[in-house]
């Protein structure tokens, strides 16, 4: 009996193991190995040198890009979490089940078009002679330069992550036992204190998971900083492009990638720990 169960277990896990092995573990291992290779006459040669790590991590450009990317990803996660919450709260507590399902479907619709197309759309909307400046101009403001700036990049990041964050938060909030909210009122909590003391702690996991997703997607995004942020100063994703383009420095780009993977791994692990702390 146990033998059969274990065979079944392996059988059902096999696709996941193969997929993760072939398309995640092996490439990452290859990437890690590549960081020690040598580039000679624009061609890579297997080797074991530490130069790529020293040259990359020794440059101020890398660290400027690193802190910029980290800061932007953290900021985008915080802003997305804050903007998404009222929407998720409304969807979870004020809407009927039907409306909620329809709204969640609408939140998936943006993913039907390529993010690149959506970024191009923002280029038109945020342009100096675009509709946003036209509206602001009609009340005597602007024109503002919104493209090719940190603001432009942030608009891109939020376009990418906001629907996902709303979905995660709505799930988190919908799962709260309504009796807990009523119990808080019943014990003398005002609506505001109910939100802070009961709803937020009870929805903590959904809120954190949404924020983690926002952070991960923003941290690695290339489209927003390139097409809307003007690629200067460069983020890590743009640094990778630049490094591969200039002199075929694939191993050094791999170093940047390894640093990104490491950072995402550590931050997500820490955030998930907080998200699930005190949960069974």
């Amino acid at each position, binding site marked *: 009996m146990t033998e059969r169960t274990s065979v079944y277990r392996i059988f059902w896990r096999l696709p996941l193991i193969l997929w993760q092995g072939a398309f995640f573990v092996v490439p990452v291992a290859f990437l890690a190995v590549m960081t020690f290779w040598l580039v000679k006459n624009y061609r890579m040669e297997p080797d074991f040198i530490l130069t790529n790590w020293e040259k990359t991590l020794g440059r101020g450009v890398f660290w400027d890009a690193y802190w910029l990317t980290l800061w932007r990803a953290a900021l985008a996660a915080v802003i997305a979490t804050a903007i998404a919450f009222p929407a998720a709260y409304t969807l979870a507590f004020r809407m009927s089940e039907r409306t909620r399902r329809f709204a969640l479907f609408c939140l998936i619709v943006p993913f039907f078009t390529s993010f690149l197309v959506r970024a191009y759309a923002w280029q038109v909307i945020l342009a100096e002679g675009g509709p946003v400046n036209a509206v602001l101009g009609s009340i005597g403001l602007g024109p503002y330069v919104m493209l090719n700036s940190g603001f432009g990049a942030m608009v891109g990041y939020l376009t990418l992550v906001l629907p996902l964050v709303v979905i995660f938060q709505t799930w988190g909030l919908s799962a709260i036992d309504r009796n807990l909210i*009523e119990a808080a*009122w019943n014990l003398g909590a005002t609506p505001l204190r109910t939100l802070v003391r009961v709803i937020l702690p009870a929805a903590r996991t959904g809120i954190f998971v949404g924020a983690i997703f926002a952070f991960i997607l923003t941290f690695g995004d290339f489209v927003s900083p390139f097409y809307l942020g003007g690629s200067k100063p460069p983020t890590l994703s743009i640094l990778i492009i630049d490094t591969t383009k200039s002199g075929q420095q694939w191993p050094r780009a791999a170093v940047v990638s390894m640093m990104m993977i490491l950072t995402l791994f550590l931050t997500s692990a820490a955030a998930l720990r907080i998200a699930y702390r005190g949960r069974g």
Partner: protein
Amino acid sequence: MTEPLVRFHEVKKRYGSAFAVKSLDLDIQRGEFVALMGPSGCGKTTTLRMLAGLEQPTSGTITINGKVMNDVPAHQRDTPLVWQSLALFPFLSVVENVEFGLRMRGIDTADRRERALKWLDRMGLAGFEARRIDQLSGGQRQRVALARSLVTEPEMLLLDEPLSALDAHLVIRMQGVLTKLQRELGITFVYVTHSQSEAFAMADRVVIMGQGEIEQIGNPREIFRAPKTRFVAEFVGRNNILAGPVSGGVMTTAQGPVPVATADGPAQIVVAADTVSLSRDRPAQGPAIQAAFLSEEFAGTVIICYLEAADGTEFKAQVTEAQLSALQPEPGQPFWLTWDASRVHVMKA
């Protein structure tokens, strides 16, 4: 008569076109243990929730301590409720759960901790204060929920089927805990349940509700032995109901003539299953009707026999094990039911 703690005056609650509570007039006295009992959908929980301010009445007034409460929001009332699901906060420790109400009232940290610990101790939960809720047993959670509701020393405690999720042996124990607490504290308990045994075991007064209206209010004995309406007679106890016109001390029922000591006119009588005896032959005297045996149900020390009269009416008779083995009933077999005519309860038709 002193002013009641709670007064419902012509309270109605409507959801769309459906009435959850049709028209409720009810006074609840200080220090009373009142049970609201009825089948699901009878409006008992809605009534309790209106008292806590979690639902607003469509019309009518609810007064607590002489003050009209209709527009007082839930968080400004002192009407703690114990939920069926208990609704303990899973992200807070045991003592933080108990402290919650005090914290919301702005009691300072040291004071509220002391009061919470005192209540945990009283509930036999000393040493459990740092536990998480999911590390407690069902009975322990129940007591945390009680401590959380009582820590603010309210004048009344509302309970919404708090024992229905517990194992049978724990229910009996918690009934003891609740009645003892209510006596010691001297506060009002308003207890919603669909369980007759819980209501009758604990309450001073039982309010039977059916379809949004009060059917009868009385102490458990009155309700059990003298149901006012057919609904109550069918809902509580194991009762047989006979109906028909009475003339000269004889009621003409669908099951035949039955002697009844009541005035002429239409009437209904309630014959409790425990006052009915069964026999194969027609008894020499007293009321008797004939019915075919259907099935039996073991109810602990006694057995309930179900029988069907020729017109399809179901009858119940409570017998002992010895009586059952003497009768040896087979399904479909006819029996005579008889009872002591002086022990029947006469209802208005």
